[in-house]
């Protein structure tokens, strides 16, 4: 395929992914928005007023980046895992497999679909946060970089989950047992500096910490961890997962007998 054909194939996959999640918006866009609004109301407005500020940031404002990130993570992961597994289940993934679309383009198309949903949901949640606190952005580029890379990492994770999944249960195991706990312990609701030393050390093995922390830096200009270090970590995750995805698709894992 020449560059033009490749672009058309990529655009086709991306368009289809976006059309898919927009068509079922009440399952894809609404739930995270309702969820995060509940967090805003309970943690921010009610409990938050009784909690002291963190790093000089009022508690309500402090949890906004984490809650936005949480929505981005879940949405991008879920989008790719369910779409990819769905097309394996209905076998319409074969439409792509018999075509000359290179594997990296298939991956890019699905990943950008997940990123699109992640960022869209994140933006809506951020807009809603304005009802509870005055939104500030310290550095828009950092915000954009972190939200983008995070969405890419979790879209790739969703894709890999989808590649290995053989039944519907396999699609929800990872989000429930790994993603949600990691997100909760990833510093969404607290600064890791307030944790006992042992927990601080353990938390540093949690990739979501770097995402939330760097993202929060973009809003307030203060962070627990060096931002450059977080960017390097995120980039590393992106490359490792991207190579894994290309390798698995090349091998035909879960797709070809």
């Amino acid at each position: 395929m020449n560059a033009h054909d490749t672009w058309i194939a990529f655009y086709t996959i991306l368009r289809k992914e976006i059309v898919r999640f927009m068509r079922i918006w009440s399952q894809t866009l609404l739930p995270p928005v309702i969820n995060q609004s509940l967090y805003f109301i309970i943690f921010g407005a009610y409990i938050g007023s009784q909690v002291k500020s963190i790093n000089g940031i009022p508690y309500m404002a402090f949890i906004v980046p984490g809650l936005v990130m949480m929505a981005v993570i879940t949405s991008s992961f879920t989008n790719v895992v369910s779409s990819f597994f769905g097309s394996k289940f209905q076998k319409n993934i074969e439409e792509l497999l018999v075509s000359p679309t290179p594997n990296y383009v298939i991956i890019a198309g699905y990943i950008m679909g997940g990123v699109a949903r992640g960022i869209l949901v994140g933006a809506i949640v951020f807009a809603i946060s304005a009802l509870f606190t005055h939104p500030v952005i310290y550095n828009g580029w950092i915000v954009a970089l972190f939200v983008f890379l995070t969405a890419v990492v979790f879209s790739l994770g969703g894709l890999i989950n989808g590649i290995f999944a053989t039944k519907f249960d396999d699609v929800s195991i990872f989000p429930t047992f790994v993603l949600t706990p990691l997100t909760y312990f990833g510093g969404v609701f607290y600064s890791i500096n307030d944790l006992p030393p042992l927990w601080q050390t353990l938390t540093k093995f949690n990739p979501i910490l770097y995402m939330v922390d760097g993202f929060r830096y973009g809003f307030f200009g203060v962070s627990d961890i060096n931002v450059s270090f977080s960017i390097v970590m995120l980039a590393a995750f992106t490359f490792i997962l991207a190579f894994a995805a290309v390798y698995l698709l090349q091998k035909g894992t879960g797709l070809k007998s």
Partner: protein
Amino acid sequence: MDALNIQNLTKTYATGTRALKGVDLRVKSGDFFGLLGANGAGKTTIIGIMTSLVKKTSGKAEIFGYDLDKDLNKAKKEVGVVPQEFNFSIWEKVIDIIVAQGGYFGVPRSVAMDRAEEILNALDLWSKKDQTARTLSGGMKRRLMIARALIHHPKLLFLDEPTAGVDVELRHGMWKYLNNLNANGTTIFLTTHYLEEAEELCRDVAIIKEGEIVRNDSVKNLIRSLEKQTYILTVETSKGRKPVKGFDVRVIDDATLEVDLHKDQTMSLLIHEFHENGYVVLDVRPKGNRLEQLFLNILQNK
């Protein structure tokens, strides 16, 4: 140039099933080729390997000279496939399924739209274009898959039992469409276990049995090679008539006879001999399909 060239192709599935045991097969460009075989003979496996949905165990496979191990994407560009089982998303609209398939082959949306209109019209599906695939009948779903396979104008079309479960009228319509497609230059590779379909459509056929090709020839030669053909004769009455010498005749009922006609006997001779012996022959028709007899002979002998 061969549209398809397979050498010593083998496939052993992870379950241990040896689906292909060294298959050699060539299909000429422009041919209408039929791969015949019973259920489980390995037909779908061959198409799966040629369309990269199944990984071969060993052997060499080429499409229009492109080796699938080296130039897979170039080979894929020339190929369209209508699988045996439905493999589209039932939640998508007919038009979206087809246009997206075009996109995966690099066909721009606007071009794919125009082509889709033409193909869907020819397949009598245009009025369903905005319906989700879920709402189509079985025959329509088949035709949707044919339309989808043609959107990028492939030079070689694989059809895996395309008329299974399709009613008679629709089947004949499909045959006409496929014949026309082939006349316009598309090489067609069809699997079927309807021998009538193979005789109607194909110029060349191969017969596959338990993962091995047991016969590969033109339909013409195959039919010529039949040792004998059985005909059903309807006569006014066979009561009191003398037996006809030189023919193997079985009386079914008073007015119906079954006669074997050997390779070296002609129909004229048969009619003549019966006439001479006082029969009034009202009608003659072949018993079953000719290829079918051959097919059964081959599968039972080998």
